[in-house]
Structures are given as structure tokens and as C-alpha cells.
């Protein structure tokens, strides 16, 4: 075989392998079942992480707690794909599923981006104390650069909080300065690690009895969430 033919075949094969690997990594691992099998809820070796652990430990939540489906987001306030989800997809999920009582949404911190992420997580919990977590969530993701590029992250986070209507800033500032939630990010991240979640954003869609959990890894479009949520709601 001529050297040029070998070279041509090599390039084409390399291209095909490259695309295959990428598609395998992302498409193959996109949906998983971290809590057990689809029919029976928790598996034996993962039973220590129960549905209650996910839903009843003071994590920020929106929607009806008795909704048939719970959507848990594991995110980091410095992650750009989480920001895309918060800007593009979450408002549509809120409008169509949370507001209508079909879905209850919970946020958990999965931080990999260093101390600024820990600080943002802690500040968001301070906003949650005043039932303003979701306002702050949208502000942080919409204006990510303002605290990510700031030399004084704490002040930047406080400035962003001042945009929230009805937030007691004095209370918020003292909560942030006092480090009331300085370990929340580590605690949530530990839980995510135990579930095998490494990437942000990761979503867990689970029925209210803890059965049929499904995982989505990535900033999926609304259409994908709609497909999965409609299927799960139909199955309840």
C-alpha cells in the first residue's frame, strides 16, 4: 500500500475514532440511574443515600413538596453550562412544571471551581434563609462574571444580593461574614461524590416515593426535560 494511502486512511480513522470517543463519553453516559434500578428504587449498596437525604436537609427548594416528581440540580455558581441551564431551561421548567405543582425542584451544591464557588454557595444559602434563594440563583448565573472576575468576591456577592427585592441586606451580610454556611458546599459535594456525580450541572429526576431515579449530565434543552418529566408524570 502506498504511503499516501496509508496516510489518508490514518487521518480518516483518527477522525472517526475521535468523534466516536466523544460521542461515547457524552451520549453514553448521559442518562444513568444512580439510586438503583428503574423499577425498584434504591439498590442495596446505595440505600444509605435515601430520597429523604436529598429532599429534607434544608436544601433550597421551589414548588410543591408533595409534587409527584422531584428534580434535583447539582450545580456550581461558576459553571458556565449551569448558567445556560438557569437562563434558558429553568424558567420554562418553572412555568410548565413547578408552578403547576407537577414538579418540586431542589438545588444542591457540587463545587469544583475553588473557594469562590464555596463562597457563592454559602451566600446563596444565606439568601435561602430569607426565602430568596431562587432570585439570587438567577442573579448569580446571569451576572456570573461580576463575582468570578472580582478581586473581592465577598463584596461582589453582597453587591449582587442588593439587587434582590425585599432582602434584608444587613441580615444577609452578617450571615455571609459569619460563615454560617461555610461547610454546605463540602457537605453537598460529598453527597454528590457518593452518588457518583462529578460534572456540573447534573440533574436527578426522581418520583416522590424515591423510585425510578434518572440522571441527566449536562445543560440539556427544555425539550429533553419535557420528554423525561412527561414520561415520569404519566407513569405516576
Amino acid at each position, binding site marked *: 500500500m502506498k504511503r499516501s494511502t496509508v496516510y489518508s486512511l490514518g487521518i480518516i480513522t483518527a477522525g472517526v475514532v475521535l*468523534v466516536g470517543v466523544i460521542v461515547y463519553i457524552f*451520549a453514553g453516559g*448521559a442518562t444513568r440511574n444512580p439510586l438503583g434500578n428503574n423499577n425498584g428504587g434504591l439498590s442495596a449498596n446505595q440505600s444509605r443515600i435515601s430520597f429523604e437525604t436529598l429532599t429534607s436537609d434544608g436544601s433550597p427548594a421551589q414548588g410543591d413538596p408533595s409534587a409527584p416528581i422531584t428534580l434535583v440540580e447539582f450545580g456550581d455558581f461558576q459553571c458556565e453550562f449551569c448558567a445556560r441551564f438557569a437562563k*434558558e431551561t429553568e424558567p420554562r421548567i418553572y412555568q410548565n412544571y413547578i408552578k403547576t405543582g407537577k414538579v418540586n425542584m431542589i438545588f444542591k451544591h457540587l463545587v*469544583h471551581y*475553588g473557594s469562590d464557588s464555596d463562597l457563592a454557595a454559602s451566600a446563596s444559602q444565606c439568601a435561602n434563609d430569607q426565602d430568596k434563594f431562587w432570585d439570587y440563583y438567577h442573579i448569580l448565573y446571569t451576572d456570573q462574571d461580576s463575582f468570578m472576575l472580582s478581586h473581592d468576591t465577598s463584596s461582589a456577592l453582597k453587591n449582587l444580593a442588593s439587587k434582590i427585592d425585599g432582602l434584608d441586606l444587613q441580615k444577609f451580610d452578617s450571615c455571609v461574614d459569619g460563615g454560617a454556611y461555610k461547610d454546605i458546599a463540602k457537605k453537598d459535594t460529598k453527597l454528590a461524590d457518593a452518588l457518583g456525580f462529578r460534572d456540573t450541572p447534573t440533574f436527578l429526576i426522581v418520583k416522590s416515593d424515591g423510585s425510578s431515579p434518572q440522571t*441527566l449530565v449536562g445543560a440539556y434543552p427544555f425539550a429533553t426535560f419535557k*420528554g423525561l418529566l412527561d414520561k415520569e408524570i404519566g407513569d405516576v
Partner: protein
Amino acid sequence: MILVNSLTASIGSIKIATSMLLNNRVHAAIMIGIAVAFWIAFNVLDQLLFFSPFLDFYLPNDALPTFVLSNVTSVLMGLVVSMNIYILRNLKLKKISASMFSGTSLGMISSACASCTALSFLLVSTFGVAGAVASNLLSNFQIPLRLMSIGLLIWALYSSSRKLTASCMISNPD
């Protein structure tokens, strides 16, 4: 004036080389195949294209600039690689010149450079905080890096097309 003339000549040379390539079915197919492969890879990494649980594609506002740039990169990548294969298969080169390889390899590196901005997703989960720092850096310079890679690919395309069109020139007996 000299600059305009040389620019026109360069564009002309790229046009001729591209039409030579597209007139050959095999090389046109290679070009389209490579462009499509890179388009898929870029859009999967940019989290615009999903295969599971459903085939889905969406284009949010924040992704528009990178989407346009990755389309350009994919097409250029297809052209550069296919053109280099064409040169290797059809021209009787006594030896493969270093410049041709540098053109191809630069094109490859530059496209990898463009995709590494999208690879931040993998970097963070694989390398933890160090990966996150690298990822932040890549995200902040995503657009300039992609523009730089397009610049390198255009240069690679120009050098390949010059090689291709120069081989067709009839030397002046004088």
C-alpha cells in the same frame, strides 16, 4: 496596492484548489465527512447537540458566537485535511516538504485548541481544582482562541492551496 494584489492572488489560489478538490468525488466526500465529524464533536462538547436520551439540538443565545466559529472551523478543517490528502495522493512529490506537514499539523493543533475550550467540562471533572482553573482560563479566552485557530487554519489552507496550484503552473521557457 501590492497587498491587495497578493490578497487577490491568494484568494484565487484557494478558489482554484477548492474547486479542484470538489470536482473529485472521493475528496469532496472526505471533506464533507471530516467537516461533519468535527461539527458533531464541537457541538457535543459545547452541549448544543445531544444523542441521549433523545436526539436534540438547541442554540441558546450565549452559544451563538461559538456556534458560528465552530461551523467555520469545521468547514476549514474538512478543506485543509482533504486538500492535504489530495496533494499526497495526486502530486508526485519527491519528498514531503516540512511546510506541508506544518500546515496540516498546525491546522490539527489549532482545531484541537478550539475544541479544548469546550473540553472544560471534562477538565473540571478529571483534574478537579487545577482543571477548574484551566477551564476558567479557557472559557474566558474561548472566542480569541477560536479566532486564532481559524486564522491558523486559513494559513494552512493557503499554504496547501499554493502547493496544489503551483504544481499546475507552466514554467516560462524564457
